[in-house]
């Protein structure tokens, strides 16, 4: 992964020092709470129901074992022994005290980490495909571009006080978007221009970026639009800068709930918006902003493939795997759901499930983090990834090691074989933790994971995403769940709206509300009835829940859920 040089290191250290000064001036009363608030938000420090919450950045979801050990240490030393993986690949701590935060930032800086711009009306964490660099269907590793964008956006002086938060995601697999780019303020897709015009070094095809704008969830969900189908690779920074400038100048500042770029794009219309961006881009023809090859190469070095073993060694004799799969049902199941194919022969991608029944989705303890670091060192070249679906990943595991790693993961409660299945639930922290929430989401997620815990049943259902949000801010991404659930407060009662048919990847769609909101104790039944209908009417076991819903439409499912 990318290694900080002296410049990167200086920036995070100076930032930690700057924040220490700001905290001091706040404590001394030189700065009011209102003046302090955007400053602390830009350091990821929220005030929540019970305590401050600190959101630590995990740029594009990549972590080294050293960094994971530090995250474990922070959980132990300054918090209550656990952290929470978020839907933007970050980690958050729910219980630090204000006085401790400058020390936490110092600790983070010592391992090349920070909490910069993880909150506030600025450019947030650049997120990406959790399988970047190892997915077999990838066109080009997006992470070097993510790192370049991270640097470009860090303390960008022109865009520190945007109308609202700004989220960017990058995918390097044009055929399968695992970064949900259509639901970001800016989504970038690496593409190949095969129009025959000569590319770099005389290549027949040119690599560039398809740039999407205006996607998002929240109160008014939107699927993004393509603002330019092909941006030359060297224009990436300049082009994005023009989008940000148009947003900074024209985004609404009169109404917090209409201030995202998706509203601007919608109100102006995609065409008019695009024209403003293109005009600004044309006018700011600064050759110095062009991405330089040497800089891209410098950054890309950090993401060079690790020293993979040849397939004979990576695969081993294959006997253990075959034998165990035949005789150990639990192992076979885990192999089928949580272990994915890898670009290099003999290797696999292993998903570490943080969705064990009885635990809030995405929570991870200090012990789990420490042991994960050991596993990473032993089995995955010292690297781990976070997923926006709130699981984690060991990206480079030899097939020969799968059996022993499974046993380790079972001992750590990270082997629940439910990746992409029903109980791989995404839920926001909800009313139990969040000052913005209207309803609790965690108890419902626990109930659903109990109700559907039968693994045979889950496998039979196949891939089906349940996503739960405790308010219309949609941090649980309920709009793009195959089954989305929104908690609302109706006359003092927590009730839940069910929606079906959401999808956050290439054939993106927003979920549709199925019927009247339900009290908490009726949700699991309704979901079960919906699933029963699917099982009964799918064309065959290959047709996914989503495809079946798209084919049949909402009516029959509504009947099933609400009917007699």
């Amino acid at each position, binding site marked *: 992964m990318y290694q900080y*040089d002296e*410049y990167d290191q*200086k*920036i995070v250290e*100076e*930032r930690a020092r*700057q924040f220490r000064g*700001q905290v001091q001036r706040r404590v001394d009363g*030189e*700065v009011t709470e209102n*003046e302090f608030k*955007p*400053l602390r938000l830009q350091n990821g420090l929220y005030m929540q129901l019970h305590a401050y919450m600190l959101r630590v950045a995990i740029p594009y979801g990549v972590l080294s074992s050293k960094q994971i050990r530090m995250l474990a240490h922070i959980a132990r030393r300054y918090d209550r022994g656990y952290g929470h993986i978020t839907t933007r690949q970050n980690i958050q701590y729910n219980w630090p005290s204000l006085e401790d935060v400058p020390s936490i930032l110092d600790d983070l800086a010592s391992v090349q980490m920070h909490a910069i711009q993880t909150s506030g*009306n600025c450019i947030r964490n650049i997120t990406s495909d959790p399988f970047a660099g190892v997915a077999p269907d990838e066109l080009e590793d997006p992470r070097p571009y993510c790192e370049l964008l991270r*640097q*470009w*956006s*860090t*303390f*960008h*002086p*022109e*865009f*520190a*006080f*945007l*109308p609202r938060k700004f989220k960017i995601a990058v995918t390097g697999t044009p055929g399968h978007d695992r970064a949900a780019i259509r639901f970001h303020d800016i989504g970038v897709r690496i593409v190949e221009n095969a129009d025959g015009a000569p590319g770099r070094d005389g290549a027949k095809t040119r690599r560039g970026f398809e740039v999407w704008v205006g996607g998002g969830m929240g109160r008014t969900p939107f699927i993004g639009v393509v603002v330019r189908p092909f941006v030359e690779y060297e224009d990436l*920074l300049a082009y994005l800068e023009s989008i940000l*400038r148009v947003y*900074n*100048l024209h985004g609404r*500042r009169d109404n917090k709930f209409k201030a995202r770029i998706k509203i601007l794009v919608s109100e102006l219309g995609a065409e008019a918006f695009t024209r403003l961006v293109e005009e600004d881009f044309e*006018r*700011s023809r*600064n050759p*110095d*902003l062009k991405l*330089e090859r*040497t*800089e891209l190469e*410098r950054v890309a070095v950090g993401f060079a493939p690790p020293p993979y073993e040849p397939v004979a060694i990576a695969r081993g004799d294959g006997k253990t795997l075959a034998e165990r799969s035949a005789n150990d049902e639990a192992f076979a199941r885990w192999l089928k759901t949580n272990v994915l194919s890898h670009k290099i022969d003999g290797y696999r991608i292993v998903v570490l499930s943080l969705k064990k029944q009885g635990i809030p989705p995405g929570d991870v303890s200090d012990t789990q983090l420490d042991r994960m670091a050991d596993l990473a060192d032993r089995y995955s070249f010292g690297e781990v990834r976070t997923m926006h679906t709130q699981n984690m990943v060991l990206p480079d595991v030899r097939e020969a090691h799968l059996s022993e790693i499974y046993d380790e993961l079972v001992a750590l409660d990270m082997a629940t074989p439910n990746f992409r299945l029903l109980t791989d639930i995404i839920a926001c922290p909800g009313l139990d933790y969040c000052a913005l929430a209207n309803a609790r989401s965690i108890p419902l997620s626990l109930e659903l994971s109990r109700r559907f815990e039968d693994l045979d049943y889950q496998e039979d259902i196949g891939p089906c995403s349940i996503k739960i949000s405790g308010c219309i801010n949609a941090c649980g991404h309920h709009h793009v769940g195959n089954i989305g659930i929104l908690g609302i407060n109706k006359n003092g009662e927590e009730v839940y709206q069910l929606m079906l048919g959401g999808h956050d990847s290439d054939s993106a769609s927003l979920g549709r509300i199925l019927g009247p909101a339900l009290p908490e104790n009726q949700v699991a039944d309704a979901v079960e009835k919906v699933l029963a209908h699917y099982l009964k009417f799918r064309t065959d076991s290959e047709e996914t829940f989503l495809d079946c819903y798209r084919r049949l439409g909402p009516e029959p499912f509504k009947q099933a859920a609400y009917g007699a």
Partner: protein
Amino acid sequence: MKVVVKDKRVVEDAWHVVKDDEAAGAHTIVSLARWNDHREELLAGGTPIGMVLRSNESPDDVRDRDRLALIAVDFPAFTDGRGYSTARMLRSRLHYKGEIRAIGDVMRDEMFLMSRCGIDSFAVKPGKDIDKALSAFDDFSVTYQAAADDERPLFRRVHR
């Protein structure tokens, strides 16, 4: 006389904003509309004239920009970040050479960012310690991206 930060020092100067119906003379800062409509008249006095750009006004709409000794960029609330783009466009895109002053809700913690956007003087708001505000310029010794103070990204300024 007002106390401001200019060229990283605390100084006194005479610049002040006047309303459209007030007399305009030396070191007065007038509105965009007034400047555009009456600039010959304003300049006839032979004294330096300034103009303020409110956060919903564009530097592209300023006529005869270079005849202004000073352009003030207003920050009605420090969270209104339009002034940063305005200042940068004035400095880098339009090559304005005069003084760009931040007025309004101006405080120490935003001054480093403002200076990177081409702002060279700061009317720090009342109630804030203007001498302590000077430490703002030391917030960071390294910056990543191009901005008005240097339109080269870090990777073009140093060898990495």
